[in-house]
């Protein structure tokens, strides 16, 4: 394995030197006149590997926002992308390269929480605004938060609390907790459990199981959980594991015996690849549906997204889209390209989004966004969320005071 590492290093360095020269193409070609009104965003995200579908959704959403802004005569948003391959060291290296060589004004990305935290550290040291539209760790705007980092998606603290609200309304007592053995999985489940214990006294934990990321066969885990007969199963998983796990629920018929809760069970990026193989009756929270809320704003966004990319937007598309809109409005509000002024403008900024009003909370820079919950069901031959309930942001986002307290602890 040592030899593999060496080989990888060699190849990586080759690839690095290659990319630096070609990647610049997207950013050049602006006249000095225009440069005054152009902001350059450096995007670091995972474009290869199991999580690439989310990165693509976010990027397409962001591109759409940039195009719409330009059409309306707003500030011109340029961008360059870099692939961190879900690796923390790559994310930091690209951040440095983007700032030093590409001279980007703003950083954005990445689905890898650890990568987001690493880039955030770099952004803090170098005073570069960094918009997180992928990493969901609650540390990003929590314990490791600072002036230059913003999060435009619900983090694991929000997800866990929203899940607890959904489950606390049901009569289950004995819970089994499970998930993919990485930061996101554990963080969602821990936040869920801490909140549920407060909201529904009397609940008990029957046990836990954790599988490695990229697990090929969930049957042993499901078999084990089934044999212990819990009242409900709560799962923290995402990415490729999410799709594979949902499939295993169908194959084993688990949801018929034991109620299952998974965040994003009802999201398009989970249900679309599964098609008819998606299990019915799985509960889950989700920040976005193309068909709900049924408002003109959401319809307009879905139509524009469909027209541009020939597919329906899933949750990550809205994160990228909001990031672009937040940035554009902040620049307009600041009336300047100055990084400090953009940060000032972003703080507490509210914009209208397809799902209603969204605010970047002044205290911790976490986006205030409603969340929905529902259950997977076949509606008119198509798998989607049924019995959707909206949770207002105030109800599920930990208070600013709580978040700031977690920063002090550090």
């Amino acid at each position, binding site marked *: 394995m040592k*030899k*593999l590492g*060496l*080989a*990888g290093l*060699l*190849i990586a360095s080759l*690839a690095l030197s290659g990319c630096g020269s070609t990647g610049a193409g997207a950013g050049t070609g602006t006249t000095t006149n225009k440069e005054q009104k152009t902001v350059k965003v450096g995007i670091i995200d995972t*474009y*290869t*590997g*199991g999580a*690439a*579908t989310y*990165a*693509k959704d976010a990027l397409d959403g962001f591109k759409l926002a940039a195009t719409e802004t330009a059409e309306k005569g707003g500030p011109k948003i340029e961008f360059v992308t870099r692939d961190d391959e879900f690796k923390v060291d790559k994310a930091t290296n690209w951040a440095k390269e983007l700032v030093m060589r590409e001279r980007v004004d703003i950083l954005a990305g990445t689905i890898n929480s650890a990568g987001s935290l690493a880039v955030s550290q770099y952004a803090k040291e170098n005073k570069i605004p960094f918009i997180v539209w992928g990493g969901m760790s609650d540390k990003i705007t929590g314990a490791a938060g600072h002036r230059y980092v913003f999060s435009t998606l619900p983090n694991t603290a929000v997800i866990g609390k929203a899940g607890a609200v959904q489950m606390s309304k049901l009569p289950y007592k004995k819970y089994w907790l499970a998930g993919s*053995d990485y930061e996101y999985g554990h963080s969602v489940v821990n936040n869920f459990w801490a909140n549920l214990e407060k909201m529904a006294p009397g609940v008990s934990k029957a*046990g*836990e*199981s*954790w*599988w*490695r990321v*990229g697990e*090929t*066969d969930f*049957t*042993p*885990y499901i*078999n*084990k959980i089934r*044999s212990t007969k819990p009242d409900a199963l709560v799962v923290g998983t995402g990415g*490729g*594991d*999410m*799709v*594979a796990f949902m*499939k*295993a629920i169908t*194959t*084993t*018929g688990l949801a018929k015996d034991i109620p299952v809760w998974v965040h994003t069970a009802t999201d398009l*990026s989970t249900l*679309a*690849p*599964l*098609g*008819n*193989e998606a299990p019915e009756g799985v509960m889950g929270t989700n920040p976005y549906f193309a068909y709900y809320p049924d408002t003109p704003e959401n319809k307009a966004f879905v139509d524009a997204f469909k027209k541009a990319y020939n597919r329906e937007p899933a949750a990550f598309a809205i994160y990228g889209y909001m990031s672009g809109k937040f940035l554009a409005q902040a620049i307009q509000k600041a009336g300047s390209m100055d990084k400090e002024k953009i940060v000032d403008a972003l703080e507490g900024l509210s914009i209208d989004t397809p799902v209603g009003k969204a605010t970047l909370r002044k205290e911790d820079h976490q986006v205030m966004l409603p969340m929905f919950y529902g259950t997977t069901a076949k509606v008119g031959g198509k798998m989607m969320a049924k019995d959707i309930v909206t949770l207002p942001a105030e109800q599920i986002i930990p208070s600013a005071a709580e978040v700031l307290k977690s920063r002090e602890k550090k």
Partner: protein
Amino acid sequence: MDFATFASQFLIGLSRGMIFFIVSAGLTLVFGVLRVSNFAHGSLYMLGAFLAYTAILWLGQGEAGFWLALLIAPLAVAVIALVIERGLLRFIYKREHLMQMLLTYSLVLIFGDLVKMVWGSDYKSLPVPQALTGSFHFLEANLPVYNAFLLLIGPLVALGLWFFLFRTHLGKLCRATAADREMVDVLGQNSTWIFALVFALGGWLAGLGGALIAPTVNIAMGMDANIIIYAFLIVVVGGLGNVWGALISSLIMGVGESLGVLFIPDFAIILPYLIAGVLLIIRPSGLLRSAW
């Protein structure tokens, strides 16, 4: 803990071992005969899954589609493997191991990007064929039919490999080449074609593993990295180049992990590595005789 749960967990573990065996048998064959540690073996497995996906899209989602895809995808991967061997690998057999690793590792990156270019980064899923859906129920436990199907396929592949290696002229030549390449050359047999054949067979096995796993997983980039570590672990524990060693260690890994989930869930995730570590301490050169 009732007996039915234990029994079903054991069988699920065995079926898991079957996939491990099919993939690692290919890796260990290439190890034994070509003396090349093929990092791209996981990529060939991934290609098997993606090609099965495409084949089923073309053939329609009907019953026949799955079986035809199971036939076509591994063969297509075998052809790709053949092209790799004739076009690239054969030029570096005489070079040091690091060079070979560099080449096979670069193939991992190339195939990773190629898969992204051809199939995109969206998640893909194949339905389990109608005949293999559902579960067998016994007492309080159940076993998915697809796992039972894997329990049938695994021994068939093992039997086929045994027949090829021990009962056919070509297979005997393969084993002879693994033991002493110069002697095979001296005896007037063209060993370079045997190399090509074995590499293609290794590719076929990887492709078969990928096509078999396709209906139960999320077909996406990253599948290659997930399997290759297991495959190497199994090959090393079983004894480099020894197909039967790979079979035994695959089953130990599969069943060990599955029972670990049942009895010690907290440690299940590191159990394969723990098992590998203990086995290697007891038998440092692998369970069975290494071909190296």
